[in-house]
């Protein structure tokens, strides 16, 4: 984890790409939490940020990024470039987070 470079640029400073290993991806589907939902229901009256959900989505993104990194490391990559994120709602109350990029070997 520590020594893999993640970037959404095509090239990163200080290194050269020596080998392309193809696309890598990670995804996770998360459903909302009942307890958080009650708070969110109250927040829906006054409006504003739903902190519980912000944290939930941050955690979920970390998880899918971790999966992408595992995939990249299995291919022998030490960097993932041109990373994109995408979110879609798959059913009522659940969201899918998806991250993808190109695994490369850099020097």
């Amino acid at each position: 984890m520590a020594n893999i470079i993640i970037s959404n640029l095509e090239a990163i400073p200080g290194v050269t790409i020596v080998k392309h290993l193809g696309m890598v991806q990670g995804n996770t589907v998360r459903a909302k939490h009942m307890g958080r939902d009650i708070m969110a229901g109250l927040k829906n009256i006054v409006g504003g940020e739903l902190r519980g959900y912000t944290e939930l989505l941050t955690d979920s993104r970390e998880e899918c990024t971790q999966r992408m990194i595992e995939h990249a490391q299995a291919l022998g990559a030490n960097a993932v470039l041109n990373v994109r994120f995408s979110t879609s709602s798959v059913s009522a109350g659940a969201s899918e987070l998806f991250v993808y990029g190109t695994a490369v070997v850099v020097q």
Partner: protein
Amino acid sequence: MVGFIIFLALLSVGFVFGRTAEANHFKSLIEREEKLSHITITTTKKLPDGYRSSEFVAGNVVISIDYFKRIAAALRGLVGGRIASYTSLLERARREAVLRMKEEADKEGASMIANVRLETSSVFQDAKQLVGSLEVYAYGTALK
């Protein structure tokens, strides 16, 4: 009758609290944007010259509309036209997400964020609700 009183109560609570919360949020946005104005952000993919290292940075926010504005938007939906309440809601969410990304870049000591992408999605939407919660996610590569 009771239902109508509850409706009016929710409407006024939403109006009062939603309004002050929005005003306060805009004030804090302007203040923080001023503080972080030294970080340039671009949407170009190409790596600019003269930087030594890079770091992935991101910021996100999940935001919800207040009850008064939801009703106002529903009424507007009958006649069509610009829905001001959602316009300002999304503006707040985008500015907040970009600011959080900038704050993260500032901690890294970066002076620029390249290839910034903004993604908007409605998350955890209920079948009965018109709009659940909106999420804005901003990400990019911080350079120093």
